């Protein structure tokens, strides 16, 4: 869109946009910077004080490490399940003639259920039907949180599947399964990958539902929450910084790769 905003308006709009981005990014990046500071007191490190010391001590923090492994396991199972279910849901979406909009709502509405209410409801049901809290109960809570996002990403990726491709394959005698396997699947594979990664990160970072649903082994965010409120320490900055950096790098590469692929088309 070519619009002549005028220099002052341009400046004003960019200032507002950059201020908003700073509100989102400045504090987390400040935390990451602090995590490289050798000092026990939080503050920006000087260039000579940069250290990986606090990161190096992380493997010895057994409570944190056990929670991390639990979270990674839960996130992996959640992401696989959410991706497969979202793929089915997206395929169903295109099979439906009427009721598409209803189906879309049914898949996306769970996103709006507040975490505390979802966690409380599931934990009440589990405890009073004799189901012990474990990784499985957390996965049950996380599925409904991760699925809507995976569904939207995968549904959007179907834009690459032009109806003409499938019609041509149909004319040439390909079965429905062959059409799916040879045409649809390769075209939506980037969407499936993004859906999986996003679902993984959503589960890995989820706190409120896990707070109600995790068993003896808490997930990482639940352990972190406890530690954040009982006096912060450089170790917390390091593990938080590591998780933040990793999430940022992963999402950024997914978005950039997807963007490049779209341009190449």
């Amino acid at each position, binding site marked *: 869109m070519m619009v*002549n905003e005028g220099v002052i308006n341009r400046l004003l709009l960019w200032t507002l*946009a950059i201020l908003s981005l700073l509100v989102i*990014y400045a504090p987390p990046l400040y*935390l990451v910077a602090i995590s490289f500071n050798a000092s026990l007191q939080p503050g*920006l490190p000087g260039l000579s004080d940069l250290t990986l010391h606090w990161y190096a001590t992380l493997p010895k923090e057994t409570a944190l490490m056990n929670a991390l492994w639990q979270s990674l396991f839960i996130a992996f199972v959640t992401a696989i399940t959410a991706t497969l279910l979202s793929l089915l849901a997206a395929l169903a979406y295109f099979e439906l003639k009427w009721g598409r909009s209803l189906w879309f709502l049914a898949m996306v509405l769970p996103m709006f259920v507040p975490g505390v209410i*979802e966690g409380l*409801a599931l934990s009440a049901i589990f405890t009073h039907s004799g189901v012990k809290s474990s990784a499985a109960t957390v996965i049950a809570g996380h599925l409904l949180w991760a699925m809507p996002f995976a569904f939207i990403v995968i549904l959007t990726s179907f834009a690459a599947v032009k109806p003409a491709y499938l019609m041509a394959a149909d004319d040439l005698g390909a079965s429905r399964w062959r059409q799916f396997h040879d045409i649809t699947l390769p075209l939506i594979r980037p969407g499936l990958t993004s859906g999986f990664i996003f679902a993984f990160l959503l589960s890995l*970072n989820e706190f409120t539902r896990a707070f109600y649903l995790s068993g003896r082994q808490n997930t990482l*965010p639940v352990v972190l929450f406890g530690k954040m409120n009982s006096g912060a320490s450089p170790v917390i900055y390091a593990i938080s910084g590591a998780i933040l950096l990793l999430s940022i790098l992963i999402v950024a590469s997914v*978005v950039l790769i997807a963007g490049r692929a779209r341009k190449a088309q």
Partner: protein
Amino acid sequence: MPFRRTLLIAPPLAVVVVLGVVPLALVVIWSFWTWDPATYWIKPELSLAGYAAIMDAGRWTVIVSTLAKSFGAAILCSLLAYPLAYAVHVMSGPRVQMLLLALMTIPFFTSYLIRSFSWRLVLGRTGAINEMLQALHITSAPLDWLLFSNFAVFIGFIASYLPFAVFPLLLSMRRVPPELMAAARDLGAGFWRALFTILVPLTYAGLFAGFLFVFVMVAGSSTEVQMLGGAGASIVSVMINDVMRVANYPLAFAISVVMLATIFGMVLVGNGFFKLSGLFGEDAE
């Protein structure tokens, strides 16, 4: 083929029903049952005690203040999202656009807990802002109201949920033919006039969807208040946590029902006005 359709629909639908619809329906039913001190659970006798207890001890004021916070945060985020979406969609070349899109996507998938916590390091008594203000001799003592205050909570809301307002706006801006704004400017409209008579009305759907998303996310949020709110600060989700500390199930369920009704009422009414699914993709209607 109805059989294939059933095979595709059944698994995801089963998950939504078993993990979503059934638990929430049970919450609604259980909110009308009676608290049983013998078992710390409830017994199936009809009772409105849970709902009556909402009126006690000023609990309803927390609900009202939650709705007010949600409304305020949704307005603030919508106002901030518009310039941001405009900058991404209109004022950026392809490279900058890609970078900004990545920057707007990342917050969805990074820890809301850690991001809220990081504001403590910035806003605290010995935090970055107070240190800076004192170093520049603007203040002589640390400002106390920066952290553990409504100010901090609102900053936290914006930092957490602003992207929820930006994306619907971007999607609806993409549907506006690019010539319209340029034509309005050619015909002599000033930039703001062109913006408010052309682009803003054509993007009402995105603006409203963004407002709704932020409202609903804030109404169900707990992390920002837990991390950044003052001693007496509350929001519905935190109140439910507190009520559950004494295992008062009927009250917790009654509060949940009021919130769920509000949230889904708003989403469904909003969806009636603007087809939300229409925002995603050409063929999604």
